[in-house]
């Protein structure tokens, strides 16, 4: 009893957490946020900042789509006491999207390979010039080329290999062209592949096609409550421009839904044979495979865990495990919607971070807009000419939410200030 008592006293004597030093920018970095939240611009990188990862000591690693002028494809940002950060160098001569930290390593991907770098106890990369190649030779045919990564707690890494096609037509994206029977793309793409996180030079034959029928996943994350991988799929494009007799431009702008899937090994989410209708909440037969806008394939493929408006391009998924935000956010999902293009001639949508509440490892209740106005104005959003496009999400050691933008390269930090 006495021992316990003294322990409690020690806890009470601890200084206030460092997060009290972080002050939001006066204009909240031009973002619209729920009451109590604030935002600041952490840094302007000037590069196409895809995904980002933060070490326990606060170093921010940003993966650039293309190496910058100095030939660096990864930037290292050192935090300052005011909550901002400065670019303190970089490395990795390859462009790409994926980046993550786990168990003392930094993982980063090009559009073909996945590398890892050992971190020291300050969270610094020890050997910048010689990363270990853990996976190589993944397919890149200049469409859905991003190789995003996520890690579980059992030593595995999950990599998205996007389909090098819109809907597996004989002539990709061509008006009226039908689907190739038994879509061959699925052999090496259009799914999530599982590899060992610590084994070098793995190729397709060393990995497992963990889930298939996923057209392109840029945002994925491991959920520690359900101990399960969740992914956000980019739904197919061009229902109207490929099949103008079957779909109006409005129907094409509003479908298919962007879907969240909770994966088990061996799952099939149905691309290219089906798409998910948001209004009818139904799996529809794809027009390339005999669909007519009405025929359904219900029950055949994995049902989405949640569905969101069409074409908004979910580029990041993050389960929030911090304690800075109010309790209702804990273990829920943040999704960064990069913004649409395939809603034209209808107004474009997206360019925002949304929050999906979760309960016991499952979506629970409707999604809500969390951080808006990356576009800069409603007019810019509608025209698709956004000032910023949210692409990556990461959680800081204090529970702040970081957002990367691959249009101008701005790194944002969202904090909760209310008591």
């Amino acid at each position, binding site marked *: 009893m006495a021992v316990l008592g003294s322990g409690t006293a020690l806890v009470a004597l601890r200084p206030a957490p460092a997060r009290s030093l972080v002050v939001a920018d006066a204009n909240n970095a031009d973002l619209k946020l729920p009451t109590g939240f604030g935002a600041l611009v952490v840094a302007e990188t000037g590069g196409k900042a895809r995904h980002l990862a933060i070490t326990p000591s606060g170093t921010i690693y940003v993966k650039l*789509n*293309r190496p910058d002028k100095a030939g660096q494809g990864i930037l290292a940002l050192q935090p300052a006491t005011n909550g901002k950060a400065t670019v303190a160098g970089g490395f990795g001569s390859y462009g790409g999207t994926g980046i993550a930290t786990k168990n003392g390593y930094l993982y980063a991907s090009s559009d073909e390979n996945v590398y890892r770098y050992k971190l020291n106890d300050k969270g610094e990369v020890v050997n910048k010039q010689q990363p270990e190649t853990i996976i190589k030779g993944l397919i890149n045919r200049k469409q859905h080329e991003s190789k995003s990564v996520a890690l579980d707690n059992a030593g595995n890494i999950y990599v998205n290999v996007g389909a090098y096609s819109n809907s597996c037509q004989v002539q990709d994206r*061509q*008006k009226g062209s039908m689907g190739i029977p038994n879509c061959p793309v699925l052999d090496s793409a259009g799914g999530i592949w599982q590899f060992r996180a610590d084994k070098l030079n793995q190729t397709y034959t060393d990995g497992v096609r963990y889930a298939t029928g996923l057209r392109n996943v840029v945002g994925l994350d491991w959920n520690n409550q359900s101990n399960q991988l969740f992914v956000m799929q980019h739904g197919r494009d*061009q229902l109207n*421009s490929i099949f103008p007799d079957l779909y109006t431009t409005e129907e094409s702008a509003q479908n298919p839904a962007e879907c969240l899937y909770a994966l088990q090994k061996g799952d099939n989410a149905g691309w290219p044979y089906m798409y998910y209708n948001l209004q009818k909440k139904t799996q529809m037969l794809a027009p390339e495979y005999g669909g007519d806008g009405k025929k359904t394939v219900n029950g055949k493929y994995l049902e989405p865990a949640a569905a969101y408006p069409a074409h908004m391009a979910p580029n990041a998924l993050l389960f929030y495990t911090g304690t800075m935000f109010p309790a209702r956010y804990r273990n829920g999902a943040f999704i960064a919607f990069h913004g649409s*293009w395939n809603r*034209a001639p209808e107004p474009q949508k997206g360019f925002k971070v949304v929050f999906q509440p979760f309960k016991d490892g499952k979506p629970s209740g409707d999604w809500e807009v969390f951080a808006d106005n990356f576009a800069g104005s409603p007019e810019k959003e509608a025209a698709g*000419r956004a000032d910023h496009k949210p692409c990556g999400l990461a959680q800081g050691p204090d529970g702040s939410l970081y957002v990367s933008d691959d249009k101008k390269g701005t790194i944002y930090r969202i904090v909760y200030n209310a008591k």
Partner: protein
Amino acid sequence: MKQLTLLLLALCWWAGSLPAAAQQKPAAKRKTTTSPAVPGAVLARGKVVYTQNCLTCHMADGYGVDGMNPPLIKTSYVLGDKTRLTKVVLHGMQGLDVDGEPYNNVMPAHAFLTDQQIADVLTYVRNSFGNKASAVQTTEVKAIRAANKK
């Protein structure tokens, strides 16, 4: 070195003087030959083809989509050689940089469009979104299609 410069200067003068000598025309007329007005009907037809076939990727304002679909605003393809431009529409395009920028998407072949539709849409593109360039004629498309039959 000096000789080379002189030679170059002479060449420039000679090349520059050629069209001037060939175009001994009244000033008023010359203006119409350098920027021939495209008939409104052609532009209207071209816009219809554009809206149905191109707008979905290149957008209503020709601005395109960052890193995916290139803009059609003053690019070397749009303003440049008409044969190369026509072939992009006839055969499609993938994996090539446009004015130094990479684009990760596919431009499908549009050989199903008629010669006139292709001429109209390219004339529309070359005279919209701030572009100003000569019209593409149906006869030109026909010849390019015939010469590139696969």
